């Protein structure tokens, strides 16, 4: 993938994640009637966009980076679909307050995940970062155990 393409995709993903988080934090500024369909539509849009990105990228496999990248977006896409389905389903099953809190938490967490994918994509799209990042992620699961020593 070209550096400029990778940069645009990363920037777009980070912005999207940020906007989802902002939506989550500002949830009480909207009325429930308006808010719920907006979220479901947003998630559906996220799902379609990410699915398209992952399909396009996985067609142009050049090295070890593209499959990782495509998998990340595919997972985000599936997550968006599942979250959208979940919130459509529980619409009538919980109180408005509980629904509101759930949506807030979900948006912040999902927005954070999307942002992290954007940052990871930015780093992994640069060949020089890959061994360093892979090594970092290999050691990452052990930090708690090491901290205990």
């Amino acid at each position, binding site marked *: 993938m070209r550096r400029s393409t990778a940069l645009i995709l990363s920037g777009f993903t980070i912005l999207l994640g940020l906007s989802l988080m902002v939506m989550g934090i500002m949830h009480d500024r909207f009325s429930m009637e308006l808010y719920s369909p907006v979220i479901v539509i947003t998630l559906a849009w996220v799902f379609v966009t990410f699915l398209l990105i992952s399909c396009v990228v996985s067609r142009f496999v050049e090295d070890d980076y593209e499959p990782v990248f495509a998998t990340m977006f595919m997972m985000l896409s599936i997550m968006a679909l599942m979250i959208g389905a979940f919130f459509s389903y529980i619409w009538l099953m919980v109180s408005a307050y509980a629904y509101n809190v759930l949506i807030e938490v979900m948006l912040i967490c999902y927005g954070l995940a999307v942002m992290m994918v954007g940052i990871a994509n930015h780093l992994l799209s*640069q060949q*020089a*970062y*890959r*061994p*360093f990042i892979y*090594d*970092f992620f290999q*050691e*990452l699961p*052990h*930090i*708690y*155990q*090491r*901290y*205990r*020593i």
Partner: protein
Amino acid sequence: MDYDVIVIGAGVGGLAAGGVLAAKGLNTLVLEQADTAGGCASSFEAEGYRFDVGACIIEMARVHDWFYQRLGLKREDYLTFLPNDPLYELVDILSGDRFTLPASLEGAAEVIGRHSRADSKTFLNFMRKEGKIMDEFVDVMFSTPQGRLRDFIKVFTKYPRILGILKYMLSPYSKVLKDLFVHPYTHRLLSNYSVIGGLPPSMQSGIMLWACFAEHQGMFYPLGGMGAVPEAMTRAMEDVGGELRLNSRVEGVLRKRGKACGVLLSDGTTLTSRAVVSNINANNLYLDMIGEEHIPRAVAKGLRSYRMSPSCAIGYLGLDYLPPLKAQHIFALTDLDLVDVFWSDIYNRGIALPQSVGMISCPSFIDPSLAPDGHHALSFITMAPPSPVDNTWEDIKWRYLDIGIEMLDAVYLPGIKDHVVFKTIATPEDFEKRLLIPKGSIYSYSMSVLSQMVFRPSNRSKCLKNLYLCGASTHPSGSVPGSICSGLLAADLALEDLNGRREK
């Protein structure tokens, strides 16, 4: 109690801890399994030649001064440093170019400027600004215990200037070099500093460029060989009341109600103390001497999760002439990417490559007393796997040594093979057996970002009270100055706890 404090291991870390504790009036005993102190920073004699076991350079000389100052002594009364100028003779193994690297930053910039003026300017600017901040950061890390997350955060809140080098810390060494400098020659010149930190350029943190700054602040060699360092530290420790006992191997650490209270020696003797300082590798301490069943499972897993820093094989040669040298040390230069390839072949695939000569050191070039008249002692260091694939070190080590000598003769010092009158080799297996270093890794755990600071074994044990750790496997890092500082930190923590208790 037999002693106030017992120190296990007379490496430079253990001697530093023992010295500080003894100077504070505590009845301190340092136990060493070998017949000499110093571990990796010691010397050995063979047929009139005196060779350095492992370490052969003094960097951050101020750390040695810190130790003697803490004992109320002067380093100059115990130990003399001979300056290395030029620092190295550099041999570009791809082009065959040979040149010397002056000790001053300006001199090094001039060498870089022979190929790229822009790089020369960048180098000077970088070293004067970021290099200085990196050095400040290292000083802070080397003098601050990193037991808890708040210790780590405190460093950044107290010294916010350090945030300016965060981008180098979180970027790979190779990328930092390529972003800063344009000419491949400059990349080659600076490639070896990543290996000094124990990782290849693609995996090492960019902050290791600090090593270049540190070397240009002064590089020395101790009069009498590297062994003079632990010998002087031992004398200083004994002068302030400490005691060193050689040939005393510790088998286990005694525990009582969650506290360390002494040691069990291999001859069955038990020695009791109020506190124990361990200078041995943290894996050996926790998993063997204390026992896995007595530590939390997370700690055992954490210890096993560390990747070791590179192991090496060292060839020691006695020569009947002075080889054609321009500096005490010769360093091999090669492409950044090739260092990664070598690394992968040796440490991932386990291939023993005697051609991977990284550094050659001829200490008698600067201190003739280390060899008989007219003769010289020389050692060469190669990157070597802990266990070669499809072979054992015992089977291949002499052949490995001979190929290494052929390599010296062909590339670095033509004609040397006709002047070798004594030769021997130490492999990673030998280092593991003699010095009890797991996998023969002289820097202990690798120096990746997540094996440093709060993620490296703490100087105050979190598993057992009254137990303190120092040496290459603990904070701040594996190296002679790092180990000395770990000893000072461990002693400070022990004093804090012991004095606190006394006051109560």
